[in-house]
């Protein structure tokens, strides 16, 4: 899997990256730029070329002209806006930027905001892990499901945009639907988890029904309520 045909001109791969987010707390672009200049002056050169995601703060209505003005202002200061978040695709297109969804997953809107099934590339292969996930390790299956055939130790964290299946003991944390998919579920053969979560709704071990501990359990959201049930 993933092996490219001889002569392939490109590969398309998912990568985790850290991006700085410019959270706009004032709809007045000039006010934003004036304060930004003060910040840039404190660390000359540090922000040069820095890729930025522009996101409006809560209850800040950033309209398209203001967004366009902000983008050109940022570029003039040597910054590189690459995407907007929590704005419409029309606004993103108008500003010539990409659109990130669910920057702060989970939100209930997330499920409805998922791309409709008209794109043929929606299938993401399930990630399969066959070695124990040790304390301190973190595994994230971006865009799909995660299957683990070994144990997840206390202090380890496994995450997926889709479902998570664990065929060893689950002693660490498992977070399904981390991009906001409320239909994601967690299945494990032996529940000793520190924490389980679906689309941001979580349950700690001390809140789990003692009768379920050590047994095979399915974890799913029903409305806003995280349900743990024996399977």
């Amino acid at each position, binding site marked *: 899997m993933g092996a490219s045909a001889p002569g392939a001109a490109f590969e398309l791969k998912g990568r985790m990256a850290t991006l700085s987010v410019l959270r706009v707390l004032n709809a007045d672009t000039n006010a934003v730029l004036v304060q930004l200049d003060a910040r840039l002056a404190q660390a000359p050169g540090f922000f040069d070329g820095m890729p930025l995601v522009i996101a409006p703060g809560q209850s800040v209505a950033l309209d398209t002209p203001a967004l366009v003005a902000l983008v050109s202002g940022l570029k003039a200061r040597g910054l590189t806006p690459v995407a907007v978040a929590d704005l419409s695709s029309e606004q993103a297109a108008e500003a010539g930027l990409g659109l990130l969804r669910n920057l702060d997953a989970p939100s209930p809107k997330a499920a409805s905001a998922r791309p409709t099934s008209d794109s043929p590339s929606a299938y993401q292969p399930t990630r399969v892990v066959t*070695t*124990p*996930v*040790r*304390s*301190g*390790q973190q595994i994230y299956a971006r865009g799909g499901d995660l299957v683990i055939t*070994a*144990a997840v*130790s*206390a*202090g*380890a964290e496994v995450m997926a945009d889709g479902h998570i299946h664990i065929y*060893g*003991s689950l*002693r660490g944390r498992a977070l399904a639907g981390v991009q906001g998919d409320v239909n994601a579920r967690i299945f494990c053969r032996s529940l000793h988890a520190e924490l389980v979560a679906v689309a941001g709704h979580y349950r700690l071990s001390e809140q789990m029904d003692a009768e379920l501990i050590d047994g095979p359990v399915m974890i799913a959201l029903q409305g806003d309520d995280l349900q743990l049930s024996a399977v």
Partner: protein
Amino acid sequence: MARIVVVTSGKGGVGKTTTSAAFAAGLARAGHRTAVVDFDVGLRNLDLIMGCERRVVYDFVNVINGEANLNQALIRDKRTQGLSILPASQTRDKDALTFEGVQAVLEGLAEDHDYIVCDSPAGIERGAHLAMYFADDALVVTNPEVSSVRDSDRVLGLLSSKTRRAEQGEDPVQEHLIITRYVPERVGKGEMLSVEDVGEILSIDLLGVIPESSAVLNASNSGVPVILEEQTDAGQAYDDVVARYLGQQREHRFITEKKGLFGRLFKG
């Protein structure tokens, strides 16, 4: 080509140095040329356990800095033929260990030794990282209690990702579990994790179980690797560990409760 064995645990005080000394002495006694290296710079202990603290002239950091050569710093053990000790510095800290320096020292030792045993410091920082980085085998030392087991689990994660073998995509470091300070009676009372519990959590091959024993403290105090105290339970347990490591089959001992008087009478 020498085989590099790191003795590691994450947690302190679980018996890494005791195990390093016993294991290295056992390998040498079996006829293998063995060097044991103390990576715990600043908290030098191995020389005490090996009973050579009065013979330290140069140390690991001196060799790394080019102030002495390996032969000047290596201390030949007086009891066991073919065993040498490279002591740590007491006056420096872990930052004195450099990647290139450690690599050069291990390569130098590999020329005329069969096994190099690296006694790791506690923690997962620089000293511990350098001790495990070049390893071919790892002895993960664990006490049967939850915090030690969790720290060992963390170290196992590092062994599979932050070592030369992992980074270069070679065969993974071979991991072996050694459970120390085991008291079957306390396991029976539910006060201590059992061998099965620890094995289930860490899911690696069990090399041996060392019983809690006054022999360990006595041996440390007199500067003798406990494996040389052949009449003691801990000494015999380490002897089993070395034999199993070298490929012999030996039944696990010291993992069931000692029979009381009645148990012994009716044992048959």
